């Protein structure tokens, strides 16, 4: 599913460099990425999603070389094929929960907002336990509810790959297992591959595979 070869990336200020000789996941695999803070886990997710472009090497997702796509195609690929659960949920406070979930459909032509999509969004929110919160503003939600709304937004376009950056961070034990179950169930239901960054070692046994990021070379010169 994901294939990375001879990847090298540095931020413009040159203070952080990441080198990954090889990294691979298979379809429908659930992989945990662990490692110390600043190791470049989020950077890797950004490179896979096409938010950042490697200086060298290649990132391939489902046979498509993401890093070789032009800007517009990379964006379309990201929005249609990848579901990204961001570290801080990245919900927009001025939109209600339903509008946040449907937001990707309103900002690109790659997705079409139809009545069926709306129904599916409401259904998905119901499955994630926020079906009764659709009309509430994102700013009025609890942390757990925000996390579910962010997961809902990531899963609605039925992605082949779900990237979760600390999706269970800052949650109490009961909730973090619940959220993880939701992510796993959703990924299973959508037959998606899951690549999740986590610091929580309690969660690791649930994944198919755990990749320790310290095996890759990261330099933080700051």
């Amino acid at each position, binding site marked *: 599913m994901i294939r990375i070869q001879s990847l090298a990336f540095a931020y413009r200020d040159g203070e952080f460099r990441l080198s990954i000789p090889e990294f691979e996941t298979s379809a429908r695999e659930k992989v945990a990425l662990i490692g110390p803070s600043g190791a470049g886990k989020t950077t890797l997710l950004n490179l896979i999603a096409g938010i950042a472009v490697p200086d060298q090497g290649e990132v391939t997702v489902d046979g498509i070389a993401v890093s070789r796509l032009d800007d517009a195609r990379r*964006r379309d690929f*990201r929005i249609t094929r990848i579901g990204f659960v961001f570290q801080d949920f990245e919900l*927009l406070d001025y*939109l209600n929960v339903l509008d946040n979930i449907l937001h990707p459909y309103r900002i690109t032509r*790659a997705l079409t907002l139809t009545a069926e999509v709306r129904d599916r969004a409401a259904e998905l929110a119901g499955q994630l336990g926020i079906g009764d919160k659709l009309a509430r*503003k994102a700013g009025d939600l609890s942390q757990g509810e925000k996390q579910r709304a962010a997961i809902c937004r990531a899963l609605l376009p039925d992605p082949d790959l779900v990237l979760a950056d600390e999706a269970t961070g800052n949650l109490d034990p009961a909730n973090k297992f619940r959220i993880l179950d939701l992510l796993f169930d959703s990924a299973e239901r959508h037959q998606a591959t899951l690549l999740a960054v986590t610091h929580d070692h309690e969660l690791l046994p649930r994944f198919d595979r755990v990749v320790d990021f310290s095996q890759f070379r990261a330099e933080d010169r700051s």
Partner: protein
Amino acid sequence: MRDSLYIAWRYVTHNRARTGTLVACVTLIGFLPLALEVLLDESERQLLSRAESTPLVVGAKGSALDLVMNTLYFDDEIPEPISLRAADEVAATGLALPIPVYARFRARSHPIVGTSLDYFAFRGLRIARGRQLALLGEAVIGAVAAERLGLEPGDHLVSSPETVFDLAGVYPLKMHVVGVLARAHSPDDLAVFVDTKTAWVIQGLGHGHQDVTTTRDPSVILARGDGKVVANAKLVQFTEITPDNIDSFHFHGGAEDYPLSAVIAVPDEVRAGTLLRGRYLEQDTPLQILRPRDVIEGLLENIFRIKQVLDAVIGVVGLATLLAIVLVFALSLRLRQREIDTIFKLGCSRGTIAQLLAAEIVIIVGLSAAICLVLLQIVDAYSGGLVRSLFL
């Protein structure tokens, strides 16, 4: 664009205080010059229409503007008086109909206009309630004045003294309201019309008092003899003209010397007007004849010069406000950098992000334009009354 507008609408309605402030600023920038334009257009229309309907005005030499403004709008600035002889002279030419106007006194801040019945026909004024002037001491009042003062036919209205300490002892006159005019949407609506003789009574030129020939009170009569009676200030002066005392009212001196503020001359035709104007070209005449249209056009030229300065000031203020709005948007972009990054990470192009921000501007400008239009409609609907109450 529809989705961008939807998201932008959510944003602007979520940040109501910011949106409200921006909308208010943009609305004011648009509204102020446009409203000024509407009011000036209306004032130009009203000034010119009144001026155009008044062919010629004869008055004392001096300020042409004061003469025209007093004759047409019963303005506070009273021109030097002329005598009734001026009206007789216009009549003697046979070129125009003279309508005397004596607009000097006030009754509860409304102008008292002494004139003849020709004035009502000339202005097309119609009695809505009551009847026309018939006797000395009667008044017919304009529709707005009647409304404001709460007067109807049968009521009374007392003239206001010109000064608080009027040592000359001219008493206010209690006038009988006999008619109320239909609304004319002109300065006539605010006026109190009386016969010129009644205006002279208000001035003290004509008066009525107890009969000195029959009074025997020694404290009133100081001397009697040679057909003359000398009375002191204790003599009862009538402050109201009634059927019982109307015969006692009399005028001293020659009527042709009695004052007027102006004479409206209504020529039979254009040529007669031109000929009449020629009669007043001599340098030694104390009178001047004016075409109110010329005077008002001169006034409007000055007003428009002032408007140009005002437009420039509004332009500079508008530019400063626009720059402030641009600054607000620029600062809000910095504050919203995280949100913009999120939208970008989700898969939004920079073009779409620009479209989202443009949609916010469109909404704010659109709301401002809508409010501005509504306000302009209101100003336009009430511009007639506004101009009359503010400027005329």
